[in-house]
């Protein structure tokens, strides 16, 4: 049943941390199983819409009648002294991630098997530990030392290893020559890693063990019958046939290995706490040089840097820096941080400094020294923007981009200067737009011959402008899909006054349009919104 192509049979170690959440809680409390806080009945719970539900109960709690999946209220009737502690699934997952990285001591790569398992590929490495038996013993020893209850199994496929670790005898090894389907035939169907509803269907069909499923398959039309029932299920967890094939190795099962990524980090513990800015700058320069060397080795450049300053009295100050482009230049980093270190309170002194690049991007080895080049050739655009944002704030430097809207003030948005421009539709060419737009349109008082005619004269900021040339109106209707029904339309005019000053003004509404402030509409208001060149 093994795939013929691979010469060395694949060996997968499955680790099931049977009580991961409880073990983690015990480690946090610092007690052994059954002692201290663990001696009393206890349950880890999750809040649900119908009240708290028990995730897992400890040995005393189980003895009292509480078990996983029960409502806390029901368990309390059986065991009134049951203590409820909120569970922490996110923390458990984090621990599992760490365990996955740590488990690479037994094999070249390992994968997480949420919520509480690990899969380690130990193909061709068992002899380093003196055989698979000793490897299992070593793994069991190390996991127990970490205070984790584990069940281990080794098998040629991930599915078989998982089934054995969860439902087989402890420390079980399935050798490559064994017939997997035959050896696992007595395990329950739950060993196939199926969803609960699928398990319920199989139970109703009377299929309780893997042998029964295999027997059905081996019959004349058995496999077709199961195939027909589950033909719409593409997900392996919902289709017992796919799971069965994965278990026996007929179809490959790709696993997602965990690759630990260490962030570039430079740290200095100082013999003497520093209280002065010169010393701080000096240490910062050292840190930046270390960081640059580290980044160079990885072929990366920093996009975000965090500088942590630990004071003698335990206070931590963190200063973060975001860069417009990947940077690997110590002087540039120092210069940008120098802006941010002006208001540091050193207290009794700073004893540890740590520089961390929490966001790094690939950067080829090309860039020279920005600061030295600045004297001759000037800075690059990214360096210039970095300096501006560091001093003026991240929102001060921006680039206008078009936004699909008819309203002039919504038709332009601002984004970070080096971001790629979104796809946009340009304004129509015959729409003349002003060079500058006021942040808020300013009200003006206008003299006109007829209410819906051309404006003749207007007063703005205390001065009267005689209008000599007008073009318009260009009517811009309110965007009914996002504004209230009482929003008035705008009639835009481009005008020029006697001195040649050009403006973009609009009349807000029409007489008798029934919108505006009162029900009858009222007189339309006039605004100046833009200044033309």
């Amino acid at each position, binding site marked *: 049943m093994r795939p013929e192509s691979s010469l060395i049979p694949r060996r997968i170690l499955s680790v099931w941390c049977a009580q991961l959440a409880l073990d983690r809680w015990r480690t946090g409390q610092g007690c052994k199983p059954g002692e201290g806080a663990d001696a009393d009945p206890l349950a880890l719970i999750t809040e649900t819409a119908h009240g708290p539900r028990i995730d897992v109960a400890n040995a005393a709690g189980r003895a009292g009648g509480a078990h996983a999946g029960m409502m806390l209220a029901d368990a309390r009737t059986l065991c009134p002294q049951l203590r409820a502690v909120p569970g922490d699934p996110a923390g458990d997952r984090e621990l599992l991630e760490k365990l996955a990285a740590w488990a690479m001591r037994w094999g070249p790569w390992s994968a997480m098997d949420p919520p509480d398992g690990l899969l380690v590929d130990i193909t061709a490495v068992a002899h380093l530990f003196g055989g698979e038996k000793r490897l299992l013993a070593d793994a069991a020893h190390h996991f127990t030392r970490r205070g984790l209850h584990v069940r281990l199994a080794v098998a040629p496929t991930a599915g078989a290893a998982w089934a054995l670790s969860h439902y087989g005898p402890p420390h079980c090894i399935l050798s490559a020559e064994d017939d997997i389907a035959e050896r696992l035939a007595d395990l329950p169907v739950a060993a196939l890693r199926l969803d609960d509803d699928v398990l319920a269907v199989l139970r109703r069909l009377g299929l309780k063990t893997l042998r029964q499923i295999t027997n059905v398959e081996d019959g004349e039309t058995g496999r077709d019958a199961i195939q027909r029932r589950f033909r719409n299920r593409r997900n392996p967890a919902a289709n017992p046939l796919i799971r069965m094939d994965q278990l026996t190795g007929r179809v490959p099962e790709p696993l997602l290995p965990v690759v630990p990524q260490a962030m570039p980090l430079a740290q200095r513990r100082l013999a003497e706490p520093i209280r002065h800015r010169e010393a701080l700058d000096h240490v910062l320069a050292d840190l930046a040089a270390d960081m640059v060397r580290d980044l160079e080795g990885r072929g990366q450049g920093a996009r975000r840097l965090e500088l942590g300053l630990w004071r003698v009295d335990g206070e931590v100050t963190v200063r973060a820096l975001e860069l417009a482009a990947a940077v690997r230049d110590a002087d540039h980093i120092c210069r940008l941080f120098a802006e941010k270190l002006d208001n540091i309170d050193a207290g009794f002194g700073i004893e540890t400094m740590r520089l961390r690049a929490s966001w790094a991007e690939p950067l080829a080895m090309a860039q020279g020294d920005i600061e030295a080049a600045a004297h001759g050739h000037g800075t*690059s655009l990214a360096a210039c923007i970095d300096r501006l944002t560091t001093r*003026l704030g991240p929102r001060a430097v921006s680039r206008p981009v078009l936004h699909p809207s008819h309203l002039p003030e919504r038709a332009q948005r601002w984004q970070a*200067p080096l971001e790629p421009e979104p796809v946009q539709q340009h304004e129509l060419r015959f729409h003349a737009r002003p*060079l500058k737009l*006021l942040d808020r349109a300013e009200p003006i008082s206008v003299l006109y011959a007829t209410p819906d005619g051309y404006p003749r004269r207007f007063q703005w900021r205390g001065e009267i402008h005689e209008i000599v*040339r007008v*073009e318009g109106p260009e009517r811009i209707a309110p965007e009914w899909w996002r504004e209230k029904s009482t929003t008035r339309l705008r009639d835009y005019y481009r005008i020029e006054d006697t001195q*040649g000053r*050009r403006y973009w003004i609009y009349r807000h509404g029409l007489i008798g349009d029934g919108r505006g402030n009162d029900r009858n509409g009222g007189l339309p208001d006039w605004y100046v919104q833009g200044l033309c060149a």
Partner: protein
Amino acid sequence: MIVPSLDSLPETARLSSADVAALSATRAARWRPGLPDAVHSEVFASARDASGTGLALALALDTLEARRAAQSDHPSAEKEDRRAILWVQDKSAVRLTGRPYRPGLPEALQGRMIHVYAENAQDALFALEEGVRCRDLACVIGEVSGNPRALDFTASRRLSLTAERHGVPLWLVRIDAGRDLSSARLRWAVRSAPSAPPRWNAQAPGDAAWAAELFRARTHAPGEWTLTQRGGALVADPKQRQPATVGMRLGKMSAKFPIAGPSSLSVRPEPVEGPLFSSGGPLEGSAALRQAQGERG
């Protein structure tokens, strides 16, 4: 145009008298559109219209085009200038005249503008200097309102020197400002001018026009023009003679701001770097000529 230091040249490469004469002739010429040598200019304008910004942009486009044309025979010259321009505004400039509006910008600049909003004049000056030092920028446009204390002669001289060293031109629009001390190489005062009626609708406002006065320049004679952007190019018409109104306006302006030059009374002598031309007096010689004479003698 960069004046080579005479000391660094070998003896044979020194300018002959004919060259010096030719050079002085070009230097003494009046300003006209299409000169590539603007480095640090100031444009004084009112806050009630966008004439200052409009003229600064027009001058910037004109100068960039001239520079590109001058370098077009260079093998590494690019067909199209895609470098960004930096536009710095301080808070009160934004409040008075608004922010640039992308659909209304000249087409060549629409996708290239990076805007900097500075809380005060000090930050604006910092941004201007950083911009002028950046080799990836085509030019820098600044808008500063009033006469802030931070923008003194030292600050403007810093800007001039940095812009000259890195070759990034700077146009600084001074909104509602008095004509204080500055080391800007070209100083303009601008008002909007009535535009020419468009061909198809004589009632509509036409192409933007500005009544611009070059009141102080290091290498050009002062003068007044009506500048228009016609077909994408900057066109300068000599000032139309309208004695009555012009006299009245000049009188008003000179009462408000002291205008240097022989056409009006110079209330306060301004310190200038290098020789200064006056529009009325005889032109004695160019800067290069004087420098050459001084160094030889």
